[in-house]
């Protein structure tokens, strides 16, 4: 037997095999290692045969998983043995034991080179193989020309050349310059004319790597690939040895089609036609046969052909042929084909618009979600996730929820994340979204990250309609016997904020809510305890008139936690206790949370961020990029009363810009746990979720003693959004751009609503500045498009999507913006009639490979067409009386953010509504007047009166009057939005935009947000 060659090795292997357990094996291995070590050390004159034997033993031991930290030198030295058997062992074992950075390898470079340029073919092969497997940069630099020479040499035999091809591939990966020699691309194309299939197979792999790196250089290889494919698939012109179960080398066919997928397109019509002919033949001619191997091989070719067809964006007919094939595959019993069918369907979704056809297979795909094989289930999950849209979201998400209960742990986290994202993106209505997330927490609380419940809170806070519903649901879950801690957190938070909306329902009195929440307290972590304390404070605040019994109960709890060892809890207990004794002051401080600013879903961001390299998540990434635009599409939410533009509760959009949203949750956690009393940054650094959710209640800023002396402190204002946000229905920023904007687009927009020049948009490539002048109902804006790069921006396009009430004319925008140049584009605006809709600039450009498209709201808003005018008492009162009752005079009574009268006056002035002091005899009231200009109304006097209640700053009555019903309505809504929520502050540390823009302190002061921030 052949093992007679190395008896000692065979004996050793048998010994190992006979070991009864791992311990025996280890002992035997140790003994052998000791033996080999002494042999190498002591006996100078080891024969090549002995060396060979020991080196194989080392390899064997290494393969078993034991460290072999000696003898490497002996292995390397065998490379220079004169005889083939020893040399071969030297090369093979060296390649197994060492890596490219090993020092010993350098010692061998010369020997290796001599073997490569020598005349012995077998030595050449050995050397090329080892360099191909572990050669590093140094090898690339010293050997590349020799290897290239061998590859294209006509005197060299195929057995050497095929190894040279893959060796060169390795060297190219180590140093891409090795193929940057004149004429190499042509040589490469010539190589593809090769008749020998071994050389051709290797060369094709080399080509794939080269084309993937730079397809431009290798266009001449493209027709050769098509020829190769014709030769194999059509002409079957190939030696018998290379057919596999009757199929001409399936591996070479696959590789060739893979190479073709790296060319973006095929321009030459003849080549394209020839290729499609072959592809058509493969698509039509692949039948299911009995022989497994033949079947697999032919389907390997078929799946590659499918991928190529998708890539080439073939004619519709061929595409639907592909989808039909895939539809067939996902229904077969054979698991491999089914798996690949599902996988390729997901890929297809990414490249072409076949969603509708794929949806027909939904039921079939759902069946695969229940397959006993986890590989198949994963594919099905990925596909369902990819194909989900608003029409099937309900079905799919409910399937996922159902599956969640039975799914194995390995999949639960992914499942819950995906279900949460889909629910958020495609919710047909918001209450369904709340249902889904609560179910998710209920079923798989351990796998529901904080991001998920934070998101629910944001939606509920931003949508008044939803609040009673969510509170009621939270209340229901609290009745369940054992609920997950996340459920305790979310229910406590929701009931604290909105529990009072349930006041008259059974089981929902403040006392009952308090006691059911308090039941959970003993079992929760300290983080949750602090949420519960806030909830208690809120319950107290909402219980008017105060219920002494409840008060005492809660005070007792605060009292107890005032000495808690957890600083965060202690601080809250002390502060809430002190504040809740102040009665009315509590109302201001613990008022309802302001709405959250729009932001990218943390979940989607998370999905984008995590594990970039796993297959399924990278698919999420792609989808997320494609779909962010449709984030939370809410169906019809028109109020029943038929005022069409009253969308105050309307749509909450999730802007897709990840902009500056920076969730560094761990940091936040730490700071909370440390209980540092002043984590407090007077300007919370970002729209951080946790800050939003928990910060304001934790009364940041001054230590507790100060709080008492400043009853008016209203924390959390910084993050309050502008209500205009909710009315601008345009999904701002629905782009799948790889280029991220600098700064917050929404904030820039809001700032520009109040001033006339500034930056509208900025990203690493471009800055768009704006400067506006307004005269009556006309405006003239200039867009400054500044290219920040040293290369040109091309395919520049700017399209204005004006709402019907505006006439807008944009002068020609040049298609190219030269490097470092600024282009000015004037934009003429005529206001036709009053409306709060917003014009949108659809802007796109291309820089390098980045195609950027942004949709930007233009600051052409109602207040720009206002002209403040002072009116005297003599003018005001007759006018006021003549405009009597709706529709010319409208009233609204609102709960608003408490705001000192002076600030409110400033706000109105900033909106170009002139406050006329002294007109109203009541000092708590404000009267303002302005002229509105539009083509339909001409100059129209508008009068506004706001009556406030000094005892309760959250209540006011506003009356708006003008001679035009639409104007009255629109203006009323406009002002209301400003009053209900406070405009976003442009945060102090925002990077100063370097545009031609006067960021004067004056501008900053006119920003009401900044003013408010100053007041805090």
């Amino acid at each position: 037997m052949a093992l007679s060659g190395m008896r000692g090795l065979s004996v050793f292997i048998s010994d190992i095999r006979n070991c009864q357990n791992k311990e025996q094996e280890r002992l035997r291995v140790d003994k052998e290692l000791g033996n080999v070590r002494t042999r190498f050390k002591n006996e100078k004159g080891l024969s090549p045969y002995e060396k060979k034997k020991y080196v194989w033993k080392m390899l064997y031991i290494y393969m078993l998983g034991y460290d072999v930290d000696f003898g490497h030198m002996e292995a390397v030295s065998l490379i220079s043995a004169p005889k083939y058997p020893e040399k071969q062992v030297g090369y093979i074992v060296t390649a197994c034991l060492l890596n490219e950075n090993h020092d010993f390898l350098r010692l061998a470079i010369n020997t290796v080179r001599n073997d490569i340029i020598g005349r012995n073919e077998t030595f050449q092969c050995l050397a090329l193989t080892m360099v191909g497997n572990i050669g590093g940069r140094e090898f690339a630099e010293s050997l590349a020309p020799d290897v290239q020479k061998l590859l294209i040499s006509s005197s060299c035999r195929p057995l050497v050349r095929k190894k040279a091809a893959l060796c060169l591939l390795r060297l190219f990966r180590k140093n891409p310059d090795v193929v940057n020699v004149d004429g190499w691309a042509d040589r490469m194309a010539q190589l593809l004319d090769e008749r020998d299939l071994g050389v051709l197979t290797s060369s094709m792999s080399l080509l794939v790597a080269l084309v993937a790196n730079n397809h431009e250089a290798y266009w001449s290889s493209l027709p050769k690939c098509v020829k190769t494919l014709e030769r194999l698939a059509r002409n079957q012109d190939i030696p018998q040895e290379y057919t596999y179960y009757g199929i001409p080398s399936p591996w070479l066919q696959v590789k060739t089609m893979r190479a073709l997928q790296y060319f973006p397109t095929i321009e030459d019509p003849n080549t394209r036609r020839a290729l499609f002919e072959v592809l058509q033949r493969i698509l039509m001619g692949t039948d299911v046969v009995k022989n497994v191997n033949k079947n697999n091989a032919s389907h390997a070719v078929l799946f590659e052909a499918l991928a190529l067809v998708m890539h080439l964006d073939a004619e519709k007919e061929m595409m639907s042929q592909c989808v039909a094939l895939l539809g067939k595959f996902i229904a077969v019993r054979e698991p491999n084909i089914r798996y690949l069918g599902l996988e390729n369907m997901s890929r297809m979704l990414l490249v072409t618009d076949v969603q509708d056809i794929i949806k027909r297979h939904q039921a079939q795909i759902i069946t695969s979600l229940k397959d006993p094989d986890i590989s198949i289930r994963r594919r099905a999950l990925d596909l369902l996730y990819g194909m989900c849209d608003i029409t099937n979201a309900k079905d799919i998400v409910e399937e996922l929820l159902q599956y969640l209960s039975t799914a194995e742990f390995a999949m639960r986290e992914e499942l819950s994340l995906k279900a949460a994202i889909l629910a958020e993106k495609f919710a047909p209505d918001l209450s369904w979204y709340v249902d889904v997330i609560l179910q998710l927490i209920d079923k798989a609380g351990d796998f529901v990250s904080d991001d998920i419940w934070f998101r629910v809170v944001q939606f509920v806070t931003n949508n008044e309609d939803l609040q009673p519903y969510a509170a009621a649901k939270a209340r229901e879950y609290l009745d369940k016997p054992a609920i997950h801690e996340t459920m305790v957190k979310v229910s406590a938070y929701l009931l604290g904020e909105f529990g009072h909306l349930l006041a008259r329902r059974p089981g929902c009195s403040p006392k009952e809510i308090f006691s059911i929440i308090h039941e959970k307290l003993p079992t929760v972590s300290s983080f949750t305890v602090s949420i519960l304390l806030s909830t208690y404070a809120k319950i107290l605040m909402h219980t008017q008139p105060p219920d002494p019994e409840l008060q005492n109960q809660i005070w007792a709890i605060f009292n107890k936690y005032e000495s808690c060892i957890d600083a965060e809890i202690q601080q809250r207990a002390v502060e809430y206790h002190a504040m809740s004794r102040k009665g009315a002051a509590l109302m201001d401080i613990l008022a309802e949370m302001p709405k959250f600013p729009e932001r990218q879903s943390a979940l989607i961001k998370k999905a984008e961020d995590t594990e970039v390299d796993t297959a399924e998540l990278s698919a999420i990434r792609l989808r997320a990029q494609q779909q962010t635009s449709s984030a939370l599409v809410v169906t019809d939410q028109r109020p029943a009363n038929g005022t069409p533009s009253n969308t105050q509760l309307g749509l909450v959009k999730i802007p897709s810009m990840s902009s500056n949203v920076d969730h560094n949750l761990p940091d936040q956690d730490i700071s909370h746990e440390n209980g540092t009393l002043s984590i407090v940054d007077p300007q919370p650094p970002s729209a951080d979720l946790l800050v939003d959710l928990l910060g304001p209640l934790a009364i940041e800023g001054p230590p507790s003693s100060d709080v008492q002396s400043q009853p008016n402190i209203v924390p959390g204002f910084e993050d309050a959004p502008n209500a205009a946000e909710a009315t601008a229905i345009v999904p701002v920023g629905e782009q799948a751009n790889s280029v991220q904007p600098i700064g917050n687009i929404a904030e820039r927009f809001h700032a520009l609503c109040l001033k006339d020049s500034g930056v509208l948009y900025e990203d690493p490539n471009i800055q768009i500045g704006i400067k506006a002048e307004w005269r009556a109902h006309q405006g003239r804006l200039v867009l400054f498009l500044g290219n920040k790069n040293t290369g040109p921006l091309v395919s520049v396009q700017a399209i204005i999507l004006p709402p019907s009430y505006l006439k807008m004319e944009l002068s020609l925008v040049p298609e190219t913006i030269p490097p470092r140049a600024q282009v000015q584009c004037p934009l003429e605006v005529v206001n036709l009639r009053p409306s709060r809709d917003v014009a949108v600039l659809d802007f796109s450009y291309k820089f390098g490979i980045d195609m950027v498209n942004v949709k930007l709201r233009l600051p052409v808003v109602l207040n720009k067409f206002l002209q403040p005018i002072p009116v005297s008492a003599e003018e005001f009162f007759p006018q006021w009386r003549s405009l009597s009752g709706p529709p010319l005079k409208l009233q609204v009574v609102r709960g608003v953010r408490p705001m000192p009268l002076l600030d409110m006056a400033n706000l109105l002035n900033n909106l170009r509504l002139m406050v006329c002091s002294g007109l109203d005899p009541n000092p708590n009231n404000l009267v303002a007047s302005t002229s509105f200009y539009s083509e339909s109304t001409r100059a129209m006097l508008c009068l506004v009166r706001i009556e406030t209640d000094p005892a309760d700053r959250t209540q006011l009555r506003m009356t708006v009057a003008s001679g035009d019903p639409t104007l009255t309505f629109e203006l009323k809504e406009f002002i209301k939005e400003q009053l209900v929520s406070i405009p976003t502050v442009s945060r102090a540390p925002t990077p100063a935009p370097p545009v031609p823009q006067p960021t004067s302190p004056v501008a900053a002061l006119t920003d009401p947000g900044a003013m408010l921030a100053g007041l805090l």
Partner: protein
Amino acid sequence: MGIRFVLMVNKQGQTRLAQYYEYLTLEERRALEGEIVRKCLARNEQQCSFVEHRNYKIVYRRYASLFFLVGVDNDENELAILEFIHLLVETMDRHFGNVCELDIMFHLEKAHFMLEEMVMNGCIVETSKANILAPIQLMDKA
């Protein structure tokens, strides 16, 4: 890259051959082999031949007591690799005559030589059995 590693493991999970085309430390190899062997060996005949693991895929095939596991990049053509395994087995069959676990164990060097003729740097070099076996036959004669 294509093929990242080729493993032959018996049904007790003992490694019979391991060839890596990317460098992993011994600890990484041990951990990886442990994980994928656990994953793949637990699967039954009705399940598909592909297992997703970390950021790559295992394509595997079982022959009697021996499992052939090939780690590939995610975008590799799975069926082509599956049949490549079979080609490897057929090649060994042609050389050993009805190859079994013991052949591979006791002729580790030959198994390595064959694999070396078929895969290099993670790419397929040769698919003709005659060409693959030519160097070995040359050596046997010598």
